[in-house]
């Protein structure tokens, strides 16, 4: 069901999520405009990852509404598999398929979900690997790639489907420091190509110079949000100040 054609590309309202007795999201509202890069920061356990996972319904929100690219994600009549094609996701632990090559990882959904022929899928897959700078690694299996390369293959796997929105769930947290740069480089290029991105991450430097907006979450709610300069230099709330102070001390 298409709800709205204009307005935000991601429109989440009053999203609640309970895990048993645990109230993880307490009525979160998040609207993201097309081509916007929103950075979500906050202490661990603040619900940032859960929020991200509610947007493509990897987690079922307990209540609230989530509309992505005009599609009501929580409507039972929505073809969720079709809808998810428009929402790319990159995970902290890469989650590449270990039994397939890099190209195999990228082409699987192109063939099975987007319905491309093997030839078409391989051409699109190679193009996607090219975009993340790994055209020469198409035949390698994940075990033969570094962490940074694996994460770039995971990004290629997502962007090959031409999503409208990309979700990044701590994409660099599992990487050795010297490999972080290559992944951020790819993310920066993706942003320059006009991709709408929601990023959960602790890479404050990247947030500072690439994000349009920074959202600070704590205890399952959005405490404050604004342009990176405002959030980092002049946070309005004590909790934001404390969190940013802690991050910058390291």
């Amino acid at each position, binding site marked *: 069901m298409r709800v709205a054609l204009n307005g935000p590309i991601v429109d989440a309202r009053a999203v609640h999520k309970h895990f048993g007795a645990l109230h993880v999201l307490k009525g979160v509202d998040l609207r993201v405009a097309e081509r916007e890069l929103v950075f979500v920061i906050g202490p661990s356990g603040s619900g940032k990852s859960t929020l991200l996972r509610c947007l*493509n319904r*990897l987690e079922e929100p307990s209540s609230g509404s989530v509309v992505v690219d005009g599609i009501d994600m929580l409507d039972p009549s929505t073809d969720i*598999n*079709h*809808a*998810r*094609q428009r*929402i*790319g*996701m990159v*995970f902290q*632990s890469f*989650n*590449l*398929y*270990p*039994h397939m090559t890099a190209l195999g990882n990228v082409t*699987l*959904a192109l063939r*099975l*979900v*987007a319905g491309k022929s093997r030839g078409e899928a391989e051409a699109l897959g190679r193009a996607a690997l090219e975009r993340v700078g790994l055209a020469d690694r198409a035949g390698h*299996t*994940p*075990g*033969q790639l570094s962490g940074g390369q694996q994460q770039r293959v*995971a990004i290629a*796997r*997502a962007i090959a*489907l031409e999503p409208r929105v990309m979700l990044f769930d701590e994409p660099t947290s599992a990487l050795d420091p010297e490999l972080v740069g290559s992944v951020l480089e790819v993310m920066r290029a993706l942003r320059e190509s006009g991709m709408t991105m929601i990023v959960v991450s602790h890479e404050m430097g990247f947030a500072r110079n690439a994000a349009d907006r920074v959202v600070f979450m704590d205890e399952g709610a959005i405490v404050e949000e604004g342009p990176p300069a405002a959030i980092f230099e002049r946070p309005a709330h004590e909790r934001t100040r404390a969190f940013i102070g802690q991050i910058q001390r390291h």
Partner: protein
Amino acid sequence: MSTWDRFAETFLNATVMHRYLPDILSGVVVTIELALLVVVTGISAGLALALLRSAGIRPLNWLIIGVVDLFRSLPPLVVIVLIYFGLPAAGLGPSGFVSTWLSLAFVLMAFSEEIFWAGITSVDRGQWEAARSTGLSFGQTLLNVVLPQAFRLAIPPLTNRTIAITKGTALGTVVAVTEILGQASSAMSNSYNPSPLMMGAAAYLVLFLPVVVAARFIETRFAWKR
């Protein structure tokens, strides 16, 4: 007559062996038929149950677990005897061959279901999430992403179990199946000489040693670098 001569006369008697070779060979054919049937039906049924179980339908899963635990607990010989002597009371009279096949297939089904299930559940949740996030359905994810990884984990225990249960075809001799052991023991009683038993043992070796070697090959084939 030296000790060795007496030994050879008793256990490796050429006349007896020559005479009963055709019987043993026909036993080999029966064993191969039985073994192939058990392996193909037992493993397919086990895989089917594991796939059904992954759909997560509670009452169905209880049923699967019940059946699987039953056949994992019963000694295969007991199952054979129950089917062979029990089913005629229900109006069905399966032959010894069919009884043995069904019994071993059920037992292999039960063990292979558990092995496949363990393989499926040990695949990282992140694999499911990555695949589902690209729009793959539950079934597509299971078949293309999870099962290939589950197989890799399942193959060593599965080959071991399969070999152990397939050797159980020898139990068919209890319900008059004319497989290798059955042929060898009747030849032994007819000739008053245990040489046919030695031939039977040799036949099992010739039959199963290649299977064991093949299993080792499959195990290395299915391993991949992480």
